[in-house]
């Protein structure tokens, strides 16, 4: 049984929930896996802290929440402070250089990437920050094929925006792979 447990956390406008959904949907529809996605919901969605749990597995998933993620993404300092400690020992903790100062000593591979900065510099549309993050994640973990993500994006997003999303994804993948090396 292969099972990956992910938590993406950040703040309202950063699109972490969308990122979680895209990832899980890609896994289910294009890679024939099972996946669940849940989120903290509600007033929090208006600018406060947000968090989404994603489980990807080749077998059935019952309990859909992630208690100890293998992969944790924190896009704000707050979320880092809140969640860094729940990571599974040896897991991967991805943060954005701009928003998070990693301070804690954690038994995990801490990866800090300048995703936001690069997005702003190269695309100048912060809406695709989350897609860049997804790219980085895939670059690091090879969890899914990039093409699966792109197929999902094509279904969800109007044509005019596909290109910048692809660009953000590629950028992320590159950063992730490079880090891996």
């Amino acid at each position, binding site marked *: 049984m292969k099972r990956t447990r992910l938590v993406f956390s950040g703040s309202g406008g950063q699109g972490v929930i969308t990122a979680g959904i895209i990832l899980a949907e890609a896994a289910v529809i294009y890679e024939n896996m099972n996946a669940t996605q849940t989120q903290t919901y509600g*007033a929090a969605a*208006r*600018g*406060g802290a947000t968090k989404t749990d994603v489980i990807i597995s080749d077998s059935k998933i019952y309990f859909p929440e992630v208690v100890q993620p293998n992969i944790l993404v924190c896009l704000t300092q707050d979320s880092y402070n809140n969640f860094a400690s729940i990571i599974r020992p040896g897991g991967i903790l991805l943060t954005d250089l701009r928003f998070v100062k990693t301070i804690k000593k954690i038994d995990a591979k801490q990866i800090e990437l300048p995703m936001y900065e690069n997005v702003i510099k190269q695309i100048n549309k912060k809406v695709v920050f989350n897609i860049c993050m997804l790219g980085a994640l895939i670059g690091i973990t090879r969890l899914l094929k990039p093409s699966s993500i792109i197929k999902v994006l094509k279904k969800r997003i109007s044509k005019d925006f596909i290109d910048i999303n692809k660009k953000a994804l590629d950028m992320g993948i590159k950063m992730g792979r490079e880090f891996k090396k």
Partner: protein
Amino acid sequence: MSVKDYIRERFFPHIWCPGCGHGIVLNSFLRAVEQLKINKNKIVITSGIGCSARISGYVDFHSLHTIHGRALAFATGLKLSKPKLKIIVPMGDGDALAIGGNHFIHAARRNIDVTAIIMNNRIYGMTGGQYSPLSGLNIKASTAPFLTIENDFNIVELAKAAGASFVARTTTYHVLEAVTLLKKAIKHKGFSVIEILSQCPTYFGRKNKKGDACSMLELYKKNTGKIGSKKLNNNPDLIKRGIFVNNNKPEYCEEYEKIIQKAATAAAIRQI
């Protein structure tokens, strides 16, 4: 006292989105109360459910956050049981006129001394942008993907027809006017209604391509005209602002005192 003395600071920053008009209504309301210098213990603010309704938690009065649409019914109980209280009821357009429409017209009919502040963003903000009875025609909403076909209420006309004795309208752009009208509404004896057009950039604005909060405020400036103003006279189709009704009909709780007098007399006669 300063405005800050009327709020519960520990709950700030509030939950409203950046640029939400409801914050401006709160701002204007606080100034109105401050200028009127009403004793905080004499004010009860009671609201239903909605983004707008959350206002009651932020102000340092007696606050009663109730259920969706029913705030005016709670208000009626509060006021009739203790007429010396000032009762303020901030409401969303859905809260006041979708589920709460009946309590609205009946409070108006009774002319009970309560102030209803309708924070009209033409959408259900709290639940994520469904259309409301105030959306009007050709509006996009999460339950109107093909644009709305429902007419909107004219709150002013409805309040008037139902019997409200003070009715006014302003916007979150016109903050000085809002403060003035709020003061008048609060001071008025009888059921007073003040509709404040209030932007929801998150849902109404985004779905209907009205731009950000600033652009929405610009629209309030552009599309409204003060009663009696030249601008309005030249463009009678603009949304009217100002006071539409202001009269001195008998107020419900005062009339009730007469019932008590009559009853006492009747009881006394029976004793003889």
